[in-house]
């Protein structure tokens, strides 16, 4: 991680109050996780205790304190997806990737997460891989979709 990157993000919010969460979201987006070094640097720059930053970063689901895979697979288990076989889609993804929700494949290719509603409820069950949304997914289709990512 480049310290400059973090500094740039911090400077974007210079003079604004209550920016810690926004800042961490930007770090997450930029680096795909929130490394310890970034937390340290933010602490120095904002003069906020490390513990407070760690607390925020560990509270929110969007922030990951471990490196994430190149592709983030979000399987939606919101209510609408739940009643439309979402859990079976999750089982299948989990099986194909060989990891449980919250884990990353050893080759750092995929991270699998459960999400509690993507807001595409009319198309359940849905899966979001990076920025791509897939609606009305059948468990049998999962493998084919995942193969499309490298």
């Amino acid at each position, binding site marked *: 991680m480049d310290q400059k990157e973090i500094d740039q993000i911090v400077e974007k919010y210079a003079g604004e*109050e*209550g*920016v*810690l*969460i*926004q800042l*961490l*979201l930007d770090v997450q987006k930029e680096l795909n996780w929130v490394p310890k070094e970034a937390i340290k640097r933010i602490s120095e720059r904002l003069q906020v205790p490390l513990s*407070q930053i760690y*607390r*925020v970063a560990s*509270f*929110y*689901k*969007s*922030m990951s304190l471990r490196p994430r895979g190149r592709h983030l697979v979000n399987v939606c*288990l*919101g*209510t*609408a*997806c*739940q*009643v*439309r076989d979402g859990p*079976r889609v999750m*089982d*299948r993804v989990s*099986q194909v990737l060989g990891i449980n929700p919250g884990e990353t494949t050893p080759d750092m290719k995929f991270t699998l997460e459960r*999400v*509690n*509603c*993507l*807001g*595409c*409820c*009319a*198309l*359940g069950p*849905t899966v979001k891989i990076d*920025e791509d*949304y*897939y*609606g009305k997914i*059948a*468990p*049998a289709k999962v493998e084919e979709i995942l193969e499309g990512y490298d």
Partner: protein
Amino acid sequence: MPRLNSPAELEKLREGILAKRLPEKPCISICAGTGCLAFGAKRVVDAFKEEVKRQKLEEEIDIKETGCPGFCERGTVVTIYPEGICYFRVQPEDAPEVVSAVKDRKIVDRLLYIDPVSGEKAIYEHEISFYKDQKRLLIGNNSKIDPKNIEDYIALGGYSALAKALSQMTPEQVMEQVDRANLRGRGGAGFPAARKWKTCRGSPGEPKYVIVNADEGDPGAFMDRSLLEGNPHSVLEGLAIGAYAIGSPQGFIYVRAEYPLAVENVGIAIKQAEEHGLLGETILGSGFNFKVRVHRGAGAFVSGESSALMTAIEGRVGEPRPKYIRTSIKGVWDKPSDLNNVESWANVPLIVNNGADWYRSIGTEGSKGTKIFSLVGKVNNTGLVEVPMGIPLRDIVFRIGGGIPEGKKFKAVQTGGPSGGCIPEQLLDMLVDYDELAKTGSIMGSGGMVVMDEDTCMVDTARYFLDFLKDESCGKCTPCREGIKQMLNILTDICGGRGRDGDIELLQELSEVLRDTSLCALGGTAPNPVLTTIQYFRDEYEAHIKEKKCPAYVCKELVSYYINPAKCQACMICLRNCPAEAISGGKNQIHVIDQSKCTKCGTCFDLCPARFDAVKKISGEPVPPPLPEDGRVLVRGKE
């Protein structure tokens, strides 16, 4: 763009925009909301742009990427203006035909909506059963607006309510209109918006803050997303009017992290409104200053709670605090802060423009105006539905929603998300408003309406919500943190066939504790899904506990899959596709599931051809023993 310095200049701009636009010029409006994007709307948009270019019609035909018109089930939705012709399930390959038809003012028959009951084709929105019974005051304009272009909103009369409020009304008059309209909070609890406004205005401390709650955490609800994505200016206009009434110079829009498109569109909208002088310093020359900032959430359901949301805006962990002092008195940085939901704010311009009496004419005694529901789950026409308060629930599910797919039997409607409850068939004729929903033990919530059919297990549904809440509980107060966990343990046991006599009563007892002693509404309403399912579907609980049977064949540990040897045609389909390799057999060898290997994924059940119908789900009874290995040869023609 020069700033607008008076309401008259806004009107002039509006006239200018309208004069520029030829009413007869065709416009292909393509839904690019998150729902249709999941169906590949981006490719559809590109294909149409490409095609218009290819046919050299760029001057003759406009293309507009819009927000969600609601009928997500049939995406990608394309509407042709000025006629208002609706095309559904449009694919990129359809572009040449549609563009040619638009040019020749013809209709592409095959993309029209076909009524599943009458079999008749419908051309216009008002002919389609899904739209017919709706009253779309808030989302009706979505298909006419490019959310990234403020001119579209202004062309439809946008910001006229703000201009009216600033130039013709005092803050008190605005407040009085909203009060008399009896606008109740659309986020869940239905608290009268004007009462909050008044408290906030009257509380000591400056500056005061106004906030849009777009956290929309309830799984199964997406109307706020669609409003913010599709018509962000309507929310901004409402917010600015509220800020004027309350006397607030600073607004926040708290959007959940899972809605990137909403964040993008509302950000663009704020920028454009500022450039036009519709936000910022001395709006429309009135001397009223108001700025808006977007705050992205970071994935925490509890942060949608008012005090938690405000803590998050301050940049701290979004946890609730005890509310002896309400947030309208002490909120963000301990200043008076008014928080309303996206949909509530979007109603405000309508009330200011049309008056409280007009607004009061829609809805029921206690609930005025319309409500947007996201009608999802096991229903034919899924999507966003905006209806007047007081419409029968049956009409929503069966007339607008078109009933249950595949001829299955209706079981329940879940409203209000994890704080709500399940409404059974015998209550289908109820009229939907805040008070009637509360009587059933459920709540309006933000408007999620998840339809469940005979294949949904109600015990599993209750378990699902508690599992969700267990993850989302912030852990600050003991009743919520520990109570939800214990209730979940009991429900997991029941679903796993380990339920015991007395479990139901224990759940009820725990529910009371949670309801009475939790710090915030997350814990306080957490028992609702459990209590309503016990109240209306007690027999399902008892079947799980006493007979170890899941009547809906959902709870994995209580269900087995079995291949009926009398029906199996040894077609190898299930055998080849079984991900657990649990099926043995071969050509002319009747297939058998090895129960010890079976993961109960249901693939065999899904794939067994309907004409064979050999795979069966079994619950509450033992699986018949497999045929002896030497007796599995299939003798064809026997049947």
